[in-house]
């Protein structure tokens, strides 16, 4: 189908749409919104691709470094010994692998270029960087080199290959290996500490794809009144859905393309270099992204198609409105609905205390928070109308025209203010809740933290695998002033005995007697109190002086109140005691497991922050468009009176104040709703992160400021182009 001029009709319609986009009143806000939507969708689609790419790459490299085992060390094929173990840095656990060659042609795992000498180790670069403060470069002996990316699950993986000193190799505790490389990954290293892929996919669906979809809808509908009119007109002129679609696409094509281009640039970066993700401290390997290059580069294209499809679907044929008066929405919530909100806040904050079991507490809390979020917008609407009336009255009393106009508007259309305010409040509470849930500790972890706060590393426990004397080399290598006792537990009675030299017993105020003396627990050294409650069955404790201490747990104590350097103890243990010796503070392992949980929870936080940013953009965009539509009413008046400051003041009252107010209400609401989580009522241990909240508040204020000026600027620009047009 071609027109008289020769250009095809669809092209002409496309250009009509593009021209309409340039001249639309809320055009700039919509432009930015559509571009942001395309970028957000592109990021969401890329995220799915990169999740698959990262897991795929991890599995592949995991298989490459998985050893093929021989039947026994005497097997002629056996060429090396292999033993996985765990260690931790900053309460974060990671894998270490002990390796010892059996023959000169012993194979090396991928990423390791040469055999380290006995008592040396090869570390991953990320572990080397993160563990410096804990002396990782000497913990397993000297560092002989770093593991290349080919041998790592991801570039940021913490991993160490350790070749123990010759005297510490215990062949029977290690497995003989013929070579590295298998069909499937054995799953040691990073694979043991990450979320299952389905969980990440669910997170990406709910916290990336859904908000991006919401932003797309909001952007597509921004300033829709004029387009709905056009749609109705086109329908009346006989234009079918194809005509409407082409015009709508023409209008949205440029901004969507701009957003998709930004998405493509971001996607391309993942192909060019390793991408470090903040908060979760995970690095996406360039190689993995390159392996899935079609998905990574297809994401922006898919985003473009999806957003344009959304634009088309969001402009269905319009029925001509009957009459010109605005009509009330058909579905209205009951009158009492807003008043439920304070009640629900009460349920969330005080309800859990009344519940009998932890699971009911959790349920009541979740219901309370959810219902608060559902009822809040209508309460905010009521408040907005009331505040609007107050503002208008004040504006009238003081002669402030901006307050008068914005107040009357808010009172007449509280929905607009409610959407803006409630959206921000909900976003605020969402971020806060995400942060609270991810830092939520279970009961033992809370107590563990309290123990660590009380005694820290003034008492350190070292497992000694055999009932053999502790080598003198180890004792000499300990930090000066450290004394060693051993803890023995009677298997039948559960009675615990601390035995060792008198010097060491005196250090923790225990009597020096060659016969076992029961210890009075009241007034006991706090270090022993914690040891007793965490590491014994609490069936009594006695002390015995001996030059030949025995027991599977070596208890190291420093001078009163002095902290012992755990890294130094680990280094000594690795050098003198053997492979995979556990070195820990009292209750420290509980904290490590809690810390690992929090680590996983940070993924929720990362996605949560993305979701909130996208949702806030969606809210702001729809409100900016609404404000520009509203400010159009004062255009003629402001042009005639030569007064443009009214836009600054109306925008101040209509956009800045609600946004700032919403942030403060959100902060308060969050603080209230967080009470049961931070107190011990629910399970305790969640921490309110004040820096995070301060950051969110500052960001919200900056956003409010930006939106204020943007709204005013849009309105002024509109006024600048105004001409009387009754012709």
């Amino acid at each position, binding site marked *: 189908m071609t027109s008289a001029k020769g250009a095809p009709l669809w092209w002409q319609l496309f250009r009509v749409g593009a021209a309409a986009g340039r001249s639309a009143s809320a055009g700039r806000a919509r432009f930015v919104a559509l571009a942001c939507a395309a970028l957000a969708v592109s990021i969401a689609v890329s995220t799915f691709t990169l999740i698959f790419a990262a897991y795929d790459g991890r599995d592949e490299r995991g298989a490459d470094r998985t050893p093929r085992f021989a039947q026994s060390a005497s097997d002629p094929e056996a060429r090396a010994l292999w033993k996985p173990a765990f260690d931790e840095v900053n309460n974060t656990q990671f894998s270490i692998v002990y390796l010892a060659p059996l023959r000169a042609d012993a194979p090396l795992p991928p990423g390791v270029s040469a055999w380290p000498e006995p008592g040396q180790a090869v570390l991953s670069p990320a572990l080397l960087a993160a563990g410096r403060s804990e002396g990782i470069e000497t913990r397993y002996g000297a560092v002989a080199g770093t593991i290349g990316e080919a041998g790592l699950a991801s570039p940021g993986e913490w991993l160490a290959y350790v070749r123990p000193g010759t005297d510490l190799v215990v062949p029977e505790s290690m497995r003989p290996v013929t070579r590295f490389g298998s069909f499937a990954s054995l799953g040691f290293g990073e694979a043991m500490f990450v979320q299952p892929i389905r969980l990440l996919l669910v997170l990406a669906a709910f916290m990336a794809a859904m908000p991006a979809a919401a932003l797309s809808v909001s952007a597509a509908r921004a300033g829709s009144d004029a387009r709905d009119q056009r749609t109705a007109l086109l329908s009346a002129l006989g234009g079918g859905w194809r005509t409407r679609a082409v015009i709508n696409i023409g209008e949205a094509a440029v901004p969507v393309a701009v957003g998709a281009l930004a998405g493509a640039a971001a996607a391309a970066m993942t192909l060019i270099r390793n991408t470090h993700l903040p908060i979760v401290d995970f690095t996406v390997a360039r190689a993995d992204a390159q392996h899935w290059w079609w998905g990574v580069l297809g994401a922006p294209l898919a985003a473009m198609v999806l957003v344009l499809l959304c634009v088309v679907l969001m402009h269905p044929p319009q029925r001509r409105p009957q009459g010109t008066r605005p009509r009330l929405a058909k579905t209205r919530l009951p009158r009492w609905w807003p008043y439920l909100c304070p009640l629900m806040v009460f349920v969330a904050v005080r309800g859990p205390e009344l519940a009998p079991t932890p699971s009911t507490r959790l349920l009541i809390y979740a219901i309370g928070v959810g219902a608060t979020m559902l009822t809040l917008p209508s309460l905010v609407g009521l408040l907005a109308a009331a505040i609007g009336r107050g503002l208008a009255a004040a504006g*009238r*009393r*003081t*002669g402030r*025209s901006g307050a*008068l*106009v914005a107040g*009357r*508007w808010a*009172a*007449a*259309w509280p929905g607009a203010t409610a959407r803006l305010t409630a959206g921000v409040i909900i976003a605020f509470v969402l971020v806060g809740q995400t942060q609270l849930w991810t830092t939520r500790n279970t009961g033992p972890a809370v107590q563990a933290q309290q123990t660590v706060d009380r005694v820290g590393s003034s008492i350190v426990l070292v497992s000694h695998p055999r009932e053999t004397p502790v080598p003198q080399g180890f004792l000499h290598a300990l930090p000066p002033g450290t004394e060693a006792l051993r803890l023995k537990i009677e298997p039948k009675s559960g009675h615990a005995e601390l035995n060792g030299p008198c010097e060491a017993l005196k250090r923790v105020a225990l009597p020096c007697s060659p016969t076992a003396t029961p210890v009075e627990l009241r007034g006991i050294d706090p270090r022993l109190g914690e040891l007793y409650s965490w590491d014994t069955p609490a069936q009594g404790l006695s002390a015995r002086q001996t030059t030949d201490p025995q027991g599977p747990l070596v208890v190291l104590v420093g001078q009163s109140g002095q902290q012992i350097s755990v890294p130094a103890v680990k280094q000594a243990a690795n050098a003198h005691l053997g492979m995979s010796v556990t070195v820990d503070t009292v209750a420290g392992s509980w904290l490590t497991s809690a810390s690992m949980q929090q680590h996983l929870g940070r993924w929720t936080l990362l996605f949560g922050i993305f979701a909130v940013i996208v949702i806030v953009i969606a809210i702001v965009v729809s409100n900016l468009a609404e404000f520009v539509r509203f400010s159009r*009413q*004062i*255009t*003629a*008046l*402001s*042009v*005639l*009176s*030569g*007064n443009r400051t*009214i836009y600054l003041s109306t925008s101040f009252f209509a956009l800045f104040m609600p946004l700032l107010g919403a942030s403060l209400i959100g902060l308060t609401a969050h603080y209230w709703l967080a009470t049961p989580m931070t107190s011990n009522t629910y399970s305790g241990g969640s921490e309110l992160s004040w820096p995070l909240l301060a950051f969110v508040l500052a960001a919200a204020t900056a956003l409010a400021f930006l939106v204020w000026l943007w709204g005013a600027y849009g309105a002024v620009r509109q006024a600048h182009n*105004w*001409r*009387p*047009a*009754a*012709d």
Partner: protein
Amino acid sequence: MLFDGLDLRLPIGESAAVMGPSGSGKSTLISCALGLVKPQGSVTVADADLTGMRRRQLARHRSRYTGVVFQFGELLPELTALENVALAALLAGTSRKDAYADAERLLVELGVPRAKRPTGTLSGGERQRTAVARALINKPALLLADEPTGALDDTNRNSVAELLFKVPKQWECALLVVTHDEQVAMRADRVFHLADGHLLERSGG
């Protein structure tokens, strides 16, 4: 070229109506009088030429000397009639007390009794009277009306037109009405036709 050798003088106390087909440039003529469009030649309002003025100066001059009544009133539906009228005075820098007092008096004089109700609830005639009051509140030397009765029914059309054409004598200003409506135009002291860029005065108008 939209206009060619256009020449129109309008003294205080006099009214003129300009008629013409759609697209003949009636609204552009209003834009010229407001200084929003600057033609070659001069546009003088209250002894000052708008074409040489800077933006700020022009805005000040416009707010001081010109008032406009639009076809659809261009009032804020959420505000009361009183507030709509007072707002124009407030924006022009009048004190709050004077703005509301003047607005109230004007609305009474122009026959808008329900001045304290939201403008959206008023009848078309009341809205247009409110628009006239708003245009007059800053005591303009020139009142422009762009299709002021275009959106009204017959009864309201007549009453608003009657009110409008009394304005020049009562409030000492000049009135320029742009309209399609012959019956409205006939009430003016002078009637012009705008066609092919020329302004032709109808004799005996």
